């Protein structure tokens, strides 16, 4: 559709021209090589959909030439992959004013162990934060997980959902954990839950060897540990569009200098 502008694409590029242009554009984008995502067709997954929502809001505003439109505004107005509004009230979004890059991370590990040594239900998630482009510093990070309707037995009960950073794994007892964020959610609610994990993400970027992942636990109001799946939290066996993911916001800490050719 936008091809009408083009005097450039009306002819087929010769191979060497294509390579030259590819090299030039990659240089402008600051990429050492062309990325090769391991599973193409992942565009229907939750993280790309979330990012596309954010992109569309930003692109529309840019088209209308709204100067000064920030990521914060895009973030506040984007539908963000869900038909219903997020369950959790969004955290302070001031950090977005400074962000010049947003990145979503796919969940690499999700352990489906139902019980810890102390018969506590939990799920684990892991994200690789070593792939962040050079010169970018984390300003905020969120863990997003989708909650469907709970098992009927929970009725109108309020559930306490907690997210922990795994500090140390132990072979004969439960892992050492650090509580990051907690939310209280009615069992019947449906939508995305958002947990603030900014501090932990920063720690993992600086010390990748300490990235042992996140642990998520659910308790009833009387403190009883319950199965994560039974309360409707969607894991890796759920639909692609509802998979949990991590989203981080960055600010460039250094100016990208292009080499002279």
């Amino acid at each position: 559709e936008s091809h009408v502008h083009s005097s450039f694409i009306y002819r087929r590029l010769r191979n060497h021209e294509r390579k030259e242009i590819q090299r030039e554009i990659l240089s402008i984008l600051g990429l050492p090589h062309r990325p090769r995502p391991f599973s193409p067709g992942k565009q229907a997954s939750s993280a790309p959909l979330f990012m596309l929502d954010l992109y569309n809001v930003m692109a529309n505003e840019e088209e209308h030439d709204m100067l000064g439109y920030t990521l914060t505004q895009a973030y506040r107005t984007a539908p963000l992959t869900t038909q219903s509004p997020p369950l959790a009230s969004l955290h302070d979004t001031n950090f977005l004013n400074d962000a010049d890059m947003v990145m979503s991370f796919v969940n690499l590990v999700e352990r489906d162990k139902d019980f810890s040594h102390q018969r506590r239900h939990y799920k684990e998630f892991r994200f690789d934060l070593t792939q962040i482009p050079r010169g970018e510093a984390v300003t905020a990070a969120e863990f997003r997980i989708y909650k469907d309707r709970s098992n009927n037995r929970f009725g109108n009960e309020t559930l306490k959902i907690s997210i922990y950073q795994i500090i140390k794994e132990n072979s004969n007892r439960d892992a050492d954990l650090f509580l990051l964020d907690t939310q209280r959610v009615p069992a019947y609610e449906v939508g995305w839950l958002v947990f603030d994990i900014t501090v932990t993400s920063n720690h993992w970027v600086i010390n990748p060897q300490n990235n042992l992942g996140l642990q998520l636990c659910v308790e009833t109001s009387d403190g009883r540990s319950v199965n994560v799946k039974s309360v409707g939290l969607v894991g890796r066996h759920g639909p692609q569009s509802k998979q949990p993911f991590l989203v981080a916001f960055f600010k460039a800490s250094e100016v990208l200098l292009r080499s002279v050719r």
Partner: protein
Amino acid sequence: AANTKRKKQDKNKSSSQQDASKMPSITDHNTSEQKQACKKHELYVSFRDLGWQDWIIAPEGYAAFYCDGECYFPLNAHMNATNHAIVQTLVHLISPELVPRPCCAPTKLNAISVLYFDDSSNVILKKYRNMVVRSCGCH
């Protein structure tokens, strides 16, 4: 495929001549285009035509534009020029062998946002400044 070899060669010859006029290149400056004043030219970069649709999610491409042409004196009324460019134009007229004309280059640039996968299928949304030429002028 039905064309004879000769026809094909003729076609290639004429299309490459046509192509050369469309593409900015060093040789352009030695041809009749030398007379053309500094202005903004259309240039659409299509990520799809570059075969990158598997990793760039959006946009499909963007109108990058480029600046090309000579900086004559007096400059076009609509064309921005730095004070130095005007001085340099005068000095060039005095000593054309020693001092080149000012350069035709972007004076205003716009940003675009690009959404793409990395090698690990993580998704990056980044705003790239200075990607689109908004106006050209003499520097």
